[in-house]
């Protein structure tokens, strides 16, 4: 397989179809306000690793077990179980192998278990490839998982940085906190809309 479509897929997943800013998945953690910049980076990177592994696993399970058995209806159930156990195993492995790294990223792993971005990545891995409109291959599923994770990290870091600034802003009282966060997310999302070359708008308006 040549690298062109994969590169296109990554750019699409990171920027054009950014999971947070244009698909509105995984917004809940942005509202939590619990993160500072280094925390956001740690959370994003752990999410990226888990999403890449989860995408590949989801593809393998779907094509190896569920499709031959004609049991596609179990997809959601199986993916959720795989991801919950994946995060638990990852946390335990990290604790044994690298306690220092665990100290920094370990707290985020259990949170990822029920995070919609990871499940969304797994579900995307078994859908059609948005670039070629054909079923994903194992490689493209993996690349899509990585790229979606990078897109998530990008959105998370941008949002946290904006929120840190907003803490000192003089906003009208009803807009403080969450509404301000959503407004800035909206502005970011508007900026990301530029990546799509506005063909989204043409599609809806026509």
């Amino acid at each position, binding site marked *: 397989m040549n690298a062109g479509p994969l590169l296109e897929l990554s750019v699409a997943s990171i920027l054009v179809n950014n999971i947070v800013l244009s698909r509105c998945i995984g917004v*809940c953690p942005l509202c939590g306000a619990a993160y500072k910049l280094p925390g956001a980076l740690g959370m994003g990177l752990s999410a990226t690793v888990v999403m890449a592994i989860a995408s590949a696993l989801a593809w393998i399970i779907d094509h190896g077990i569920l499709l031959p058995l004609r049991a596609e209806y179990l997809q959601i*159930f199986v993916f*959720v179980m795989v991801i919950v156990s994946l995060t638990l195993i990852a946390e335990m492995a990290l604790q044994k192998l690298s306690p220092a790294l665990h100290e920094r990223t370990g707290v985020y792993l259990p949170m990822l*278990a029920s995070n919609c971005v990871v499940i969304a990545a797994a*579900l*995307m891995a078994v859908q059609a490839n948005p670039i070629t409109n054909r079923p994903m291959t194992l490689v493209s599923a993996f690349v899509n998982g990585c790229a979606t994770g990078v897109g998530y990290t990008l959105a998370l870091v941008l949002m946290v940085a904006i929120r840190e600034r907003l803490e000192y802003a003089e906003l009208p009282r*009803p*807009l403080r906190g969450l509404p301000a966060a959503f*407004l800035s997310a909206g502005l970011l999302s508007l900026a990301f809309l530029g990546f799509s070359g506005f063909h989204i708008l043409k599609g809806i308006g026509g």
Partner: protein
Amino acid sequence: MTAGEFGRGIFAQNPVFRVALGVCPALAVTATMADALVMSGLVMAVLAASNLAVSITRNLIAQRVRIPCQILIITAFASMANMLLLNRSPHFSAALGIYVPLIAVNCLILNRADAFAAKNKPIASLLDAIVVGIGFTVALLACSMIRELFGNFSLMGQKVIPGHQPFLALTTACGAFFSLAFVLGLYNYFMAQKGKEKA
């Protein structure tokens, strides 16, 4: 449960406005009111079923594995909702897309399961699910009304202002963020006004 508690559950304690739980669907599927209604119906059904199931099994499940078990219960109902929608209404299944399976990990449902159903009797949990579900529906309808009215100049698919070019950006993701911010701001404003009246 009195009428006052009912109203408080829907407005003063609204899960979406108050603590921003379950905002993913509130943002993603509110481009038209019909989508928002179908989505809230599905979320409400899954919420009621999973609250009931979690509450019934609350004494059978060990504390330590409580959360994974709750996730599995919710996932089972979400899968059912997904299959039902796919079978009964392929149109809405296509329109709501990936967000229907994502009900399985909706933080609102998980929150109600762990914070309420795991500690209360089945009937109370069912009532809680209904109140929270209605609150969620109200939030989704408020957002989708703004987005459909200004983004498409229509309500429930009926053109309200024909012959003009609507604000298409409102039907995209950024419109979702803006309209939710607007609704939240209004909500905060009225809640603050109400607080002042009491004081």
